[in-house]
């Protein structure tokens, strides 16, 4: 489903278990440190990843379990995260994207996709009912061009 990938691409596969959501977040945070993101931006990326992976677990494979794929890449200096599942799919993506729209009103707030759109620069949701869902989210560092920060102990290191 990914149109093109770079040499830096990392592909991660796991079962749709709730404990894997934390792993996905942490893996994305580590990967994102290749780019010049601020701590706040990394926090936003973690939230967006958490929402997309949680959706695959909760909605995509509701009541069952299946494979979730998390594809991390850097394209033109931006982080590109794709979360894919082979679950039930979304009937109406435009409807699902709106705040408070959820198929699980008892349990969920219908804010996952709202957070994803808020925290990422560019989001494409592709879904086929009965086939699965892919959420592609892009984020470019705001301070692009500045060298990444290092520990506080070293004033002006040459970074490699």
């Amino acid at each position, binding site marked *: 489903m990914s149109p093109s990938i770079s040499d830096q691409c990392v592909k991660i596969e796991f079962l749709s278990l709730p404990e894997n959501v*934390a792993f996905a977040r942490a893996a994305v945070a580590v990967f994102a440190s290749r780019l010049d993101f601020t701590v706040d931006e990394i926090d936003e990326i*973690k939230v967006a990843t*958490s*929402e997309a992976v949680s959706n695959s*677990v909760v909605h995509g494979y509701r009541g069952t379990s299946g494979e979730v794929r998390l594809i991390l890449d850097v394209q033109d200096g931006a982080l590109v995260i794709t979360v894919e599942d082979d679950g039930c799919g979304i009937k109406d993506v435009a409807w699902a994207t709106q705040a408070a729209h959820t198929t699980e009103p008892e349990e969920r*707030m219908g804010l996952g996709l709202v*957070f994803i759109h808020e925290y990422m620069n560019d989001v494409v949701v592709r879904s086929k009912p009965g086939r699965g869902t892919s959420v592609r989210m892009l984020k470019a560092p705001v301070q692009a061009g500045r060298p990444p920060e290092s520990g506080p102990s070293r004033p002006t290191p040459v970074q490699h």
Partner: protein
Amino acid sequence: MGVVAKRIGQTLIVYLDGEFDLHAAGPFKTVVADAFARDERLRHLIIKMSDVTFMDSSGVGAILGRYRDLRERGGRLMVVGLQMPVRKVFDFSGMSRVISVFESEGHALASL
């Protein structure tokens, strides 16, 4: 995530630490439901979040669910100590409009 609960008068205080996500929402709900089921004196809930380093909409949803339960029984839900990234998620989800956030447990208890 760590979940520890204690009772002060009519109030259950739940201390959370770590990451409040889909996986953590289950244990959180269970601890609260069990405490309220066991102890009829309980009416209010204070969630101490100063050691929560991450929260997403599943965490927010778990708090909102408890808020709805308590409102039905005439109880209150208060949140204490939100770190910045958690506060941002809390505010953006509109929770600050319905749930009071306090700086400390003492302030929250005093407001009852």
